[in-house]
């Protein structure tokens, strides 16, 4: 199946439409909330939470014996929250640092989840098959009710985000100051954290615990490069997330044997790469170009100030000198000389150069500026 065929199918095939819609919504909500996680420097919290959700899923299954995905997600939500608050407990009550606390909760909860998962798989219960989709996610198992759940959670999330926008923004930027204005910072903080956990749990079925954190981070990290406004960043992140979901699903559906989760993550990673390189204000490419341009300017200035020193010794500053005397000077090339001529700083006539009034003035300004800087 190639891509055009796929696009046709999206509009005709019910299953594919459901899946595409699901991953798009998921990408959008993750992008939105991921922006907050990234700005709060809690990027890796997502990784820990998603791993910590696994025992919740298995325990929920053990208790209810049913594979109702809503109940399993509720279990995931609870154990994700337990993990989050335990991480905070470890950081505040012991001298272990945040990275250790994250790594601990991540691996210990996941290991415990695996113990239960393998335990369940050995049980003679026909119902258990498919729990391991939560490891890497299987978008193919998304059904309409899952998508509805995602849509509802996303709308609630969007509503709360708009309602408390101002409070979220100021808490993210300056928590102490927020407190002095009389806001209950603990409440805002718990609200943000809960929604981040919710988004992660929502994505487990589609992307899986292992890769969920990338889903949260990548769109936000990419979006940050394109804007200097929080609102725009959240919108762009949501778009990047949604596109990652749609493209990822499309690619994995049009190829054999590709699970959706990893493909979505790679697409999102690609967005990040593009943003890192090509973003106009922060991107590496333009930074490099600016750097080279500055270096060229510097060479030009060097040549000009060298000329200035020569011209200074003459009463008539426009007195011509032979080009040859520049040969010993490093910053000089034919190109730079021509450029100086183009800028009307010098005039050239058969093997001789002479500074113009304008050139002399510019050079003396440069010279003074340098002296100022040295002081």
């Amino acid at each position, binding site marked *: 199946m190639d891509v055009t065929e796929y696009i046709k199918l999206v509009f005709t095939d019910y299953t594919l439409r459901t899946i595409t819609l699901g991953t798009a919504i998921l990408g959008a909500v993750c992008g939105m909330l991921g922006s907050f996680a990234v700005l709060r420097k809690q990027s890796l919290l997502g990784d820990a939470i998603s791993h910590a959700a696994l025992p919740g899923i298995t325990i929920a299954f053990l208790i209810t014996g049913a594979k109702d995905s809503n109940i399993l997600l509720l279990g995931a939500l609870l154990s994700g929250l337990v993990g989050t608050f335990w991480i905070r407990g470890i950081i505040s009550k012991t001298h272990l640092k945040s990275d250790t606390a994250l790594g601990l909760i991540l691996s210990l909860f996941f290991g415990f989840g695996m113990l239960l998962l393998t335990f369940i798989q050995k049980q003679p219960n026909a119902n258990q098959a498919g729990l391991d989709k939560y490891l890497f996610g299987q978008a193919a198992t998304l059904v309409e009710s899952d998508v509805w759940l995602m849509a509802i959670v996303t709308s609630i999330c969007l509503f709360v985000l708009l309602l408390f926008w101002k409070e979220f923004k100021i808490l993210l930027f300056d928590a102490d100051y927020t*407190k002095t*204005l*009389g806001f209950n910072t603990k409440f805002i903080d718990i609200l943000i954290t809960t929604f981040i956990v919710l988004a992660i749990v929502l994505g487990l079925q589609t992307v899986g615990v292992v890769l969920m954190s990338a889903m949260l981070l990548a769109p936000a990290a990419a979006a940050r490069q394109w804007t200097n406004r929080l609102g725009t960043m959240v919108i762009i992140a949501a778009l990047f997330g949604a596109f990652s979901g749609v493209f990822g699903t499309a690619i994995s559906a049009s190829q054999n044997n590709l699970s959706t989760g990893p493909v979505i993550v790679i697409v999102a990673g690609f967005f990040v790469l593009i943003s890192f390189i090509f973003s106009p204000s922060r991107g590496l490419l333009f930074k490099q170009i600016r750097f080279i341009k500055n270096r060229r300017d510097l060479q030009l200035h060097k040549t000009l100030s060298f000329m200035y020193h020569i011209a200074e010794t003459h009463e008539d500053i426009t007195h011509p000198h032979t080009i040859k005397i520049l040969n010993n000077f490093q910053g000089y090339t034919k190109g730079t000389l021509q450029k100086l001529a183009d800028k009307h700083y010098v005039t050239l006539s058969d093997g001789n150069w002479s500074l113009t009034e304008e050139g002399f003035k510019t050079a003396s300004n440069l010279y003074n500026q340098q002296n100022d800087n040295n002081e």
Partner: protein
Amino acid sequence: MDKKKIPVSAGRIAVKVDDLTVAYNYKPVLWDIDLEIPEGVLMAIVGPNGAGKSTLIKSILGILKPIAGSVSIYNQPYEKQRSLVAYVPQKGSVDWDFPTTALDVVMMGTYGSLGWIKRPGQKEKKAALEALEKVGMLPFKGRQISQLSGGQQQRIFLARALVQNASIYFMDEPFQGVDATTEIAIINILKELRKAGKTVIVVHHDLQTVPEYFDWVTFLNVKKIATGPVKDIFNDDNLTKTYGINYKVSIQE
């Protein structure tokens, strides 16, 4: 703002700190501080590193929870008088790479009076622009905050506090890491605030500029050493009590 709460008569106590004790991780930082700050002074809090200067204003503002003691603003508990108090945190306490503009940061000063959920409107924007004008940062209103110099960032913080239109201003090292022009600009604004009858409390590092900038001073080193008018108490005796015998060295720093 509620005008009735602001007393008109001079000579009243703006901030009263009673038996304030703060311990960080149960290590003592401030001990039994009693402090009365009269209305309309421009006061410096000085003391060596680790003396608890920032801790003092943070616990007055309720950012840190004291073990004992109470704070009152114009004879009422601080919680009831928040709208009368503005705070300028240390510049280094926030992430300046945050995606927001100078104007946006200054607008945050209006959030307190807006309360929950309500968004800033034209009135708030106008106030923010005026504050930016006052600190000479109007041309930079749309600038992303990481693209401002240290001094400009400090001015933005000051503008944010000015927008609150408070009676009492607490500032944590506003002169740290700023250029000479900004330092003069800031001190002029502080002096203007005093002229307008506001009370300004500044955590200050540079002992040499105390007599020039301030009219009131508090010496602090875990305990309160002395407080009063600069011309009366800013002397070798108190400096030695606060900084130890080597205080001259700390002046040079």
